[in-house]
Structure formats: C-alpha cells, structure tokens
C-alpha cells in the first residue's frame, strides 16, 4: 500500500509538468492580451506596449514559460493583474468557501441520491423507479445557472425562506480564523452563526448538487439492481434473514463500491470550483474568482488557480483509490 501511495505521489510530478504546460499555453492561446482587457476603452497603443514590456509579454514564449516554472516551484503564483493581490493569498481565502460548498453539495446528493437510487431499484419498473429516473434526467440536463436562478426566485424572492447571495449575513461581525465558516462556528459553539452559514449554503448546495444527485441516483439504482440478484443475496434471503438485514449487509454494502468511486470523482470535480453556481449566488469561492480572471485575462490567477485545482483533483482521486482498499478488502494494491 505504501509503495502504491509513493508511486502515485511521484506520478504527480509529470502530471503537474504536463498540466503547467497545458495551462500556460491555453491561457496564451486566448485571443488578445491582458493589456487590452485591463486598459479597456482607455487603452492606447503606447500604454499597451508599455504594459506588455512590463509584463514580459514581448519576450519569447519559452522564456516566459521558464520564468513561470521558476516562480511556480517556489509556490509563488504571482500577483493578480486585476486585484493586485498575491494569488496564494486569494487561494487561502477562497478555497475554504469552495470546499464547504462542494461538501454541502455532495452531502445533499448522497443523502438524497442513494435512497432514491436504492428504492428505485427495489421498485424496479414501478412508478417510483420511473419518477426517480425522470428526476435524475432533469438533474443532469437542466443548466445549473438556470436551476440556481429558479431556486433563488422561489425560495428567496417569492417565499423569503432563504438568503439569495453570499456566504454569511453581511452584517455579521463574527471572526473566521480558519475561513471554514461551518468549522469556525462549531468550534466557537456559535449556533446562531452556524445556522446562518448553513442557510446560506442550502440553495447553492442544491443547485450545485443537482448533477451529482442525478448521477449517484442512477449509479446506485444500477448497482443495487446488479447486486440484488447475486447468488449470495438470494442465499441470504433463503436463509431467512430479515429483508432489511439483507439489504443493509449484502445489497447496499456490495453496491457501495461503484457508488464510492463516483462520489470520489464528483467530489474532485466539485472542489475544482463551481463557476456558475458561485457567480449566481455571489459565493466568494474559487469558481467566481476564476470567472473574473477569464474575463480579465488575468494570467497569474488563471495559471495559479487552475494548477492548484488540478492538484486538488489529482489528490482527491488518490484518496479515492486508497479508500477502495478500505471499503473493499478484495482489492489489494502493490
């Protein structure tokens, strides 16, 4: 197991080099230059030239790449050309928001997706099954931003049950030492703040969790359908075990392996930032930050932010692979 983990960690090096190349050249392949974006209507050819010289954008691409690698290995992602702040500082502030949102979305999709999929399989071909398939189809096909605006319109604007923007009540004076608001509120036993933070998480989590919910529902349904006709399940039933025990011990536990794989992959994806959801809910995470960076052609943020998120994605996948072995003792890594 240790050898496997070390080997996977070493594999990160070529992956990161490849990623850095991809990100570097992708950003430069975008039409136009940051100078034009930053200067806008007030740009003049002289100002653009001065800006490009200052940025080193007039140097050959390989020189720019080498400079980029030299600073990146020191975990120095540079300074945002739009906000003039260090990219690493912004990541420290924004990543916790994205983590909280991603975990809330996953929690929502797991809590609803697994029971939905399980009962759909148990009532295979019935109304509930068709209903859950329809819901998951909607979940996959409805654009996230549309669902987000719809949710806000119903639950915030019309009913007034939940807030429509932000991470916490804007008038709150509570300190957030870790930037993980839920964790901070629990540590300090500030239940009012915890309630407020959770209320702000509900709608974005539902919007963001709609696609994983649909996927988990379908995978659970398929896995349970597969497992429930296996010999060992039929044997368990024949032995006279209560149906709930058979479902819990033999069906669900064995169906969990493909579900855990998909949960891991989806968590990795959600942690990579939810550009649309964060933008619509004015949620100050990585997604809304990267969206601004794309509009501003903010090279430093795009390069640093994407590289960081790619690293997170790869590490989450590593954790998922390791968790296989724990969930399923039949799998052994060497």
């Amino acid at each position, binding site marked *: 197991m240790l050898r496997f983990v070390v080997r996977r960690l070493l594999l990160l090096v070529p992956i990161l080099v490849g990623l850095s190349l991809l990100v570097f050249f992708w950003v430069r392949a975008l039409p136009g230059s940051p100078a034009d974006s930053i200067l806008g209507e007030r740009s003049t050819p002289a100002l653009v030239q001065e800006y490009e010289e200052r940025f080193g954008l007039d140097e050959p691409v390989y020189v720019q790449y080498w400079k980029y690698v030299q600073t990146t290995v020191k975990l120095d992602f540079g300074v945002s050309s739009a906000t003039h702040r260090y990219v690493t500082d912004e990541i420290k502030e924004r990543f916790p928001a994205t983590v909280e949102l991603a975990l809330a979305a996953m929690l929502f999709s797991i809590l609803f997706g697994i029971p939905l999929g399980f009962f759909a399989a148990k009532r295979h071909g019935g109304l509930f099954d068709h209903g859950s398939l329809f819901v998951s189809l909607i979940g996959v096909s409805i654009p996230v931003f549309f669902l987000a605006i719809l949710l806000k319109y119903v639950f915030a604007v019309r009913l007034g049950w939940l807030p429509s923007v932000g991470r916490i009540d804007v008038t709150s004076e509570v300190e957030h030492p870790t930037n993980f608001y839920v964790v901070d509120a629990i540590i300090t036993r500030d239940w009012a703040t915890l309630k407020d933070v959770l209320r702000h998480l509900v709608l974005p989590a539902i919007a963001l969790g709609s696609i994983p919910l649909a996927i988990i529902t379908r995978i659970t349904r398929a896995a349970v359908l597969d497992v429930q006709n296996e010999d060992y399940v039929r044997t368990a039933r024949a032995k006279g075990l209560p149906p709930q025990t058979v479902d819990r011990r033999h069906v669900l536990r064995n169906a969990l392996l493909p579900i855990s794989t998909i949960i891991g992959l989806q968590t990795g994806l959600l942690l990579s930032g939810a550009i649309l959801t964060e933008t619509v809910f*004015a949620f100050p995470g990585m997604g809304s930050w990267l969206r601004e960076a794309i509009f501003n052609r903010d090279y*430093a943020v795009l390069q640093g932010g994407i590289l960081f998120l790619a690293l997170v994605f790869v590490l989450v996948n590593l954790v998922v692979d390791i968790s296989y072995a724990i969930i399923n003792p039949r799998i052994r890594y060497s």
Partner: protein
Amino acid sequence: MRGKRGFAALVAASSLIVLGAAGAASNVTFIYAGASDPTYLDPALVSDGESFRIARQIFESLVALKPGTTTLVPELATKWRVGRDGKTWTFNLRRGVKFHDGTPFNSAAVCANFNRWYNWTGPFQDASASFYYRQLFGGFKKNESTGLGPPLYKSCRSAGRYVAIVRLNRRSGPFVPSLVLPAFAIQSPTAMRRYEANKGELVSGTFRPTGTYAFQHPTGTGPYKFGSWTIGQRVVLDRNNSYWGKRSPLARIIVRPISNNTARLQALQTGEINGYDLVAPQDMPTIRQNRKLKLINRPPFNVAYVTINRSKAPMNNILVRRAVAHGLDRAGVVRSFYAGRAVVAHQFMPPAVAGYEPKVKKYAFNPEESKRLLRQAGLTLPVKIDFYWPTNVSRPYMPSPNLNFAAFKASLERSGFEVRGVSEPWRPDYVKHVNEGSGGHLNLIGWTGDYADADNFVGTFFQSANPQFGLTRQGAHGVIAKLLDRAEAEVNQAKRITLYKRINRLIAEFIPGVPYAHSTPGVAVESRVRNYKASPVGTERFYGITIGGQ
C-alpha cells in the same frame, strides 16, 4: 388638571417617539452592491469605479461636484483663485477639519499629498499605480519612463495654516475640475507615513502596495471612516462622528460585491441589500413594476458614437463623412433601443458639461441627401464600407450593440452604402482594433466621463493624432487640435467655455465621427431609501441618505 396631564403625556410620548427615531437613525445600516471588490483603498493608486465608490465615502478633495450635478463646489478648499501668470493656484482651506486619525487638516497636509504624487518613483510611476496622476499631471519629478512627459506640477507651499499655494509648470484649465477625482483626494500624511502608503512593488509586472495603508488603514476627512474589508464579501464603513459637516443619518455603510446582474436584482428584491448600481436594461421594467423598489436616474455623462476612420478611403472625403452623418438614423436608434433613457447626441460631450454648444450643425437622417453627397464625391453607388461592432458587451451608453448596429446598417443601406458588418468580442479584440485604427470604416464605441470638464471628452478624443478617427493634427484637424491645446491652457472659465463651444462647432463641421446618444444609466434602491442623489460621474457619496422613517 386632566387637561394638563393629558398635555404632559402627549409631550412625553412625542419625546419618546423623537428619541426613538433618533436612536433608530444612529443604528441604520445601508447595504449597497457593486459589481466587484475595490482594488485597494488608497484612492491615489486606483482608477476603477468600485474603488472610487469606497473612496468617495472616506475621502474628500479640495473641490467636489454638487450632488447629482456637474457643478464644481468647494469641499476641503472653501475658495480658490489663479494668479496672473495662470500657473499659481491659491486654495483657502476649510478650518476645523480633522482626519479620521485625529491629524489636523491644513495646508501642510495638502502639500504633503501633492508632493507625494509628484515624488513617486519606481513602481509608483507605473500606469497600474498612478493612472490618473499620469493622465492629468503628465510626469513626475524624475521621470523613469520615456513615455512620460514634463510634469504639470511644480511646487506647493503653505501661506499660513489654511492657505496652500500650488504652482504649476504650465497653465491648465482642467487642473481644478480634475481634482474632484478620488485619485486626488487629500489623505492623512500621518496615517500614510505610519502605515507605509509609499511602499510598493512590481510583481510579474503588476503593481501592489506592500504597506498596510491601502488595505487596512485608509484615512481621510470624509463622513465615513474605514471599518473593515473582507475580500469577496464586504467593505464596512462607519460614520465619522467628528465630521466637520452635518452628521450623516446612516451609522454604517456596507458595500458588497455581487458580479452577476440577476443576483444583484434578486438580492434587492429579497431585502438583502438596500440598493445597487449598474442596473441592466432588461431588469428596469421589473424594478419599475415593484412598488417596494425604485429606479433613480444617473444624469447622462456619456456619449455613444460611431467613429469614422479617415485613414480608410473614401472616409478622408468630407462629402462622404457628411453622407454617413445623414445616413445614420440616430433618432430611430435612440427611440427604439434605449427604453426612453437616452437623448440623441449631436456632439461629443453631454449637455451637462460646460462648453456644450446647442447650435452645432445637426445632421438629420436623410437618405436622399446622403446619396446625393456620395454622387457629388464622384462615387458609384452603393459605396462599400466595413462597419465594426462589438459582441459580449453592454455599456451604459450602448446597452445592445447588435441592435444599434442592425438599425444603422439598415439606414446606411437605404442611403447609398453597402455595409459589411464585422463583429468582434469587446474584450480584447474590438477595443484594441478600434483604438489602434485597424477596425472598420465605421465603428461603434462610446465614452463615460471621469470628471466634469470638456477636456475629458473632446480633449481626449481630438487633441492628439488619435488613430481611432485616423487623425493627423494636419489641415482641419490641426486647427481643432490647436484650439484644444489653447483651451487646455486657458484658466479663465468663461474663455474656456467660449473656446469649447467653438471647438464643438468645428468638430460638427469636420465630422470625425457621429455622436448619437447620451444615455441615462440607472441605480436601483428600495422605495424607502430617500435622498439618494446619483452622480453623473458614476459613483456618489452616500452622505445624507435616509432609510424609511428615519
């Protein structure tokens, strides 16, 4: 006796109500949404609207604009005059003013600020740090870049505690009007020194302050003082209870960034914010139909125009440019696509700016006259032209460029032109191509003013050999450019106005482009918000606003 008791009870009840109301007023928070965070909080180092919005609450300048207008009024200077040489400006300063850190405001503080800008070196000379200083003052004490010109500023000295004398190297008409920009607000010299406002660096070509002043300790004399800033979430400003003017009714202002238009509107509908700026045109009917909300007009301070690039034949021919002017159905576009929130423009500056000339030559939509002019120019009809227009953009002066383009194309094709439309994304291609003159014969673009001076409009467009219009400072343009030089150097406001009126008449004859709209952007607030005076220059002070029954 009963009557006396009743009266006493009434007085007591009234007092309680009054006291209650006063108590409520002292706790009222005004929550406002902008589109993004400020860049940082040292106004001398920023040039974006969101940073200026915060700066206008914390800082004050020597002069200001009367709320909701473009009229220059005293602020930290009670009066000012220029010497006979036209280069020495004497400012009489307001007494009894203190910065938020307790430092007294006086002539030494004013000179410290002017000298700070003038003496900037290294990274501070970069355009990303000192954009407006470079624009208005030209250069520094020791220029470190070839792109910088000779400095406008020469020196500043105190003539007593409350008189500051600023000497310039040349006469400048826009000098005082430009001081309303937050970039030239007066900041506390003590706080700037203590929190290292003059420390900064260039990292990967981008300027950033390294002291804490610009992020945590901005210190001015304004009605609000800095409270806190949580990036991506809010800036908190607390009432300055020692303000020299009347105490503001709002105890606290919170400005939060919400980049998405729909999200800003929904936050207003839910009551999570009390107001927001940059209302999208498509959201205006929703706001109008909601009794709990209202739309406030920002006075027009912009111009939408079609550039005519003279460097591309046949646009070098004045007859063809006249044909273009007659071929553009400006009234039709303004009527159809601005929802009643714009007026037809006939010159390159809005009516609110001094120097506007109501009597310029006007070109009514007249397809037959247009064709006649083209034939007179010896051209065979239809005349083929390229017309560039931007995508992925909505500007206050141009909410739907595609619609403007389609209408203009149709009207030009009725007027003897054959139009090839070319669209490009606003950022980065379109603006770049138009500004460097590599766009089409005609291009849709516009401008929102920074400060209330004609120089900020016609001076910006036509004083130099601007490639946007294919200008050369020769011939008819040479005459206009020289007059603009004169107007810039003129310090007598009456003479300046006369000059700019003449310039506007000449521009209308020369037709470097065709202005077509001055639009009225909107600010949305809850109906219970009162005394909100939207400034034409884009951001306003929230001083004086009340909410509900305050």
